[in-house]
């Protein structure tokens, strides 16, 4: 092969010379077109994590209760009483940027498949969304498309969407983030593995027929977006939630059948990845006959069949002789099932088309053979400029009422009800706490327990300090759960970053992962699954580094949880934690002063943990009327949210000796606002003393306004209206 030729190949398939050399070495010859396509998708960042692998190994991934860490379709934890919680989060950013409706819909479809591929019934969806400026017409188009897509798909498969975030920032203008998390419940000891073992065992493809949609989706997901990205629309898959619902029910009928060897979802990189991963995990080989793959279109080439990302397909490997049993179950649900090959012992992944071999390589070469990219990070230049914020240069506002109303009516802090009412959040009748609180709470049937679920991530903090931002993402998620009374147990994550080939981006990724890892250690919440989405750039401009954390916590008793709204006139309002003069990186600074600058609030993880332990123990003791995490928008916004929930005011006095705007709107970490009857104060003080957590009485619940002496006096009606403002804008859009 001439040098020119090789350069063309490298360019066309996106290989580095090293990678191409490795392929030739593994094959002992030049690869053909089908093989090039297969390597191209499997060695893309999306499937291989070749850029992030060395960093991901920093995450703690095990604990006594972790049954399955990263490496399977999804992670699993033991919650007792023979129940296992399965969870995973995944990104669908690029497809959603190009085609928001189908992009978001198939994002749900993909993550749900990972959950039932483990033999678990999906019981909850959460979505963490980032869009560009709210006012931008394109944002409105994308927002509508994504919300409609999630609503369409999630509702139709009967899985409730119970929590999430919708955040707007110019940073995501041309590269939105759609991160979807799915949680399932399985019986202990009855989960599936994704593996192909046992020579001669048949490989069965079930579900939809294979078409020409989504070809090369995984590679597309690993490139920067540009003006020509619209031309990649065929790389976006089309979702069919009805078939997915049938597939879920059919696959769940397989649970407990001893003849099932392995189950694998057919997602990114289609048959190529699902088959070679099963072979690789099982330490076996596979021989596949493509003419047996049910096809939706005529004259599909081997390349197209192997690379298609047609949705609603699964691979099942069963014990030889049990083929008919599988067929019967899938026939009942009106689904195709076809034997497309068999397990072999030679560890080779062999693809035949009408008996003729069209591709062949060692199974592990595709899944593990890629050269890992060891990169060096470089601290970004912009940090020196942005981190040195001089508070003196920021004017102190004259009218704090005005500031509070502006914050409450801002797209990031205002009411999101208009979005979440479009999601069925009640189906399956387990939802004890619906969207709009710190976390969702779901009962676990056949037990006395419940789980709490949340997602969290602050791109602005990570932009200003990726290490601290990474820690805060985990800490806030844990705080959300602790406020409800749940013990944080495990993390699934989506790491959304720019192009890691740039030193500054790699540095952000490295710092964020280090911060997250420290926090995961501190809260004993191992990372059990997740996904990395790099190359989130448009025309060379990277998004804010945005790690999104999904977290599950466990409540031992379904009745012992706490909600955020004030409930009784006369209750004391108490702060757990400490106020500090920190306004760097705050919503206030961005919204009111148009500044994204300073350092994000600092966080001491061991102190944070004691605050959370205090809060959780108080909830368990049943002495609190409400508990709410103090975060975006600071103390004033947190108090306003506590008032809005049940339309109940509060009279507050603050005696901090620093700037009023920092007192009210600074986003100091490790703080929780609780309310409780006065007679429970002694019990609360006993708990705070035990954990050495500062407690401060801020005031009393009651009246028809929120008064913060010397700063704020607003009628509930007035700020509720401001908070609901976004509804009108959306209705007009």
């Amino acid at each position, binding site marked *: 092969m001439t040098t020119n030729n090789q350069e063309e190949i490298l360019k066309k398939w996106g290989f580095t010379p090293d990678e191409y050399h490795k392929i030739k070495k593994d094959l002992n010859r030049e690869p053909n077109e089908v093989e090039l396509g297969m390597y191209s998708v499997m060695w893309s960042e999306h499937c291989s994590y070749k850029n992030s692998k060395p960093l991901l190994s920093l995450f703690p991934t095990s604990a006594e209760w972790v049954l399955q860490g990263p490496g399977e379709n999804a992670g699993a934890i033991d919650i007792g009483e023979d129940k296992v919680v399965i969870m995973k989060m995944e990104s669908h950013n690029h497809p959603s940027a190009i085609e928001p409706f189908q992009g978001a819909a198939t994002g749900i479809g993909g993550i749900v498949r990972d959950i039932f591929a483990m033999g678990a019934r999906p019981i909850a969806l959460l979505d963490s969304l980032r869009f560009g400026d709210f006012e931008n017409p394109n944002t409105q188009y994308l927002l509508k498309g994504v919300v409609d897509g999630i609503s369409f798909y999630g509702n*139709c498969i009967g899985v409730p969407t119970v929590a999430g975030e919708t955040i707007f920032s110019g940073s995501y203008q041309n590269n939105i983030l759609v991160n979807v998390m799915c949680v399932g419940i399985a019986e202990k000891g009855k989960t599936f593995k994704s593996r192909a073992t046992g020579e001669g065992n048949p490989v069965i493809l079930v579900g939809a027929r294979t078409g020409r949609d989504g070809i090369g989706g995984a590679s597309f997901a690993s490139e920067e977006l540009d003006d020509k990205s619209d031309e990649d629309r065929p790389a976006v898959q089309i979702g069919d939630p009805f078939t997915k*619902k049938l597939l879920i029910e059919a696959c769940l009928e397989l649970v407990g059948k001893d003849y099932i060897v392995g189950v694998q979802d057919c997602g990114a990189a289609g048959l190529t990845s699902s088959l070679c991963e099963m072979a690789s995990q099982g330490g076996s080989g596979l021989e596949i006959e493509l003419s047996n793959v049910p096809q939706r279109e005529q004259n599909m080439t081997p390349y197209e069949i192997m690379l298609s990302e047609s949705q609603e397909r699964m691979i099942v490997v069963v014990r030889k002789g049990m083929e008919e049993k599988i067929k019967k179950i899938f026939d009942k649900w009106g689904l195709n099932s076809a034997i497309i090959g068999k397990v072999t012992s030679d560890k080779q992944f062999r693809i035949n088309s009408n008996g003729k071999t069209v591709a062949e390589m060692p199974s592990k070469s595709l899944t593990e053979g890629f050269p890992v990219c060891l990169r060096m990070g470089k601290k970004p230049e912009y940090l020196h400029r942005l981190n040195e914020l001089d508070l003196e240069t920021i004017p102190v506002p004259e009218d704090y009422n005005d500031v509070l109303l502006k914050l409450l009516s801002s797209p990031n802090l205002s009411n999101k009800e208009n979005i979440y*009412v479009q999601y069925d959040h009640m189906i399956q009748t387990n939802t*004890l706490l619906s969207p709009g609180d710190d976390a969702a709470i779901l009962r676990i049937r056949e037990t006395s327990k419940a789980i709490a679920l949340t997602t969290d991530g602050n791109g602005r903090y990570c932009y200003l300090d990726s290490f601290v931002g990474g820690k805060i993402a985990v800490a806030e998620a844990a705080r959300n759960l602790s406020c409800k009374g749940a013990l944080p147990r495990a993390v699934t994550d989506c790491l959304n970053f720019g192009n890691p080939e740039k030193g500054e981006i790699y540095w952000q990724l490295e710092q964020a992962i280090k911060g997250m890892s420290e926090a995961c250690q501190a809260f004993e919440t191992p990372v059990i699954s997740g996904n990395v989405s790099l190359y989130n750039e448009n025309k060379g401009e990277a998004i804010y580094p945005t790690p999104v954390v999904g977290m599950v916590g466990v409540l031992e008793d379904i009745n012992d949880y706490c909600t955020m709204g004030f409930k009784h006139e006369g209750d004391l309002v108490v702060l757990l934690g400490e106020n500090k003069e920190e306004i760097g990186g705050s919503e206030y600074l961005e919204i009111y002063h148009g500044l994204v600058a300073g350092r994000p609030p600092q966080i001491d993880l061991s102190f944070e943990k004691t605050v959370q332990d205090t809060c959780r123990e108080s909830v368990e003791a049943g002495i609190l009327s409400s508990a709410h995490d103090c975060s975006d928008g600071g103390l004033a916004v947190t108090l306003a949210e506590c008032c809005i929930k049940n339309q109940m005011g509060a009279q507050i006095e603050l005696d901090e000796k620093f700037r009023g705007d920092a007192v009210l709107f600074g986003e100091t970490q490790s703080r929780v606002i609780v309310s409780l009857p006065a007679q429970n104060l002694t019990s609360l003080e006993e708990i705070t003393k035990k954990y050495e957590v500062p407690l401060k009485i801020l005031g009393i619940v009651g009246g028809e306004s929120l008064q913060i002496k010397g700063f704020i006096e607003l009628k509930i009606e007035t700020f509720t209206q401001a908070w609901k403002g976004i509804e009108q804008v959306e209705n007009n859009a």
Partner: protein
Amino acid sequence: MKFGIIQFPGSTCDYDCFFALKDILNIDVKFIWHEETDLCDYDCIMLPGGFSYGDYLRVGAIARFSPVMQAVKEYAQKGGYVIGICNGFQILLEADLLPGVLVKNHGLHFLCRYEYVRIENDVNPFTHLCKKGQILKIPIAHGEGNYFIDDKGLKELNANHQVVLRYCDHHGEVSDNNNPNGSVDNIACICSKQGNVIGMMPHPERCVEDILGSSDGRFIFDSIIDSIKNKSKAAYKEIHHDNQ
């Protein structure tokens, strides 16, 4: 006493109905696959919510051709109790077991939230344990729950007391402001002329436990259970009487 819940491909509220009846109300209940045709074992047939056949073509339009639907028709003709919830209501309309149609919500969006409904008919087997004017707090979750019927049909519905529930506010006031989907006359639930077939958009199976936010759905289930008990008593008496 035994309830049957029909499972169409794409039904999603089948298990919710099952749990409400079995776990909360301690009623014997069985799933009926949409290809079955023998319903003689059951005292009440439920058509659950969901997206039967993916809502393809038109909501409920394909499910009406499921083999079980012919049996449901015969079951209803003989006076058996049939309740359709959400997508089940849509299927009953498509199958001509109830009059009118359901179209897209006037806001064009799917809506999932608690609503208040007012009891308009309390002499029905499905609501007789309620009082006329009573208000129930009950969730809705649908994209196509906008009930429509022409003027003539509406007059007939009203004249025959076929409107069973209307959307209202928490004081019971019925107006456009508390009509979540644009339904004619705020209609949330209707029954057949004979009263033994009922269709409703709200989900009673989602509110049978206080921990879920309301247990008002029990009024509906308790009414059906009570009706079945009395019906069998009446039937027993009849047979007993005949024998004498």
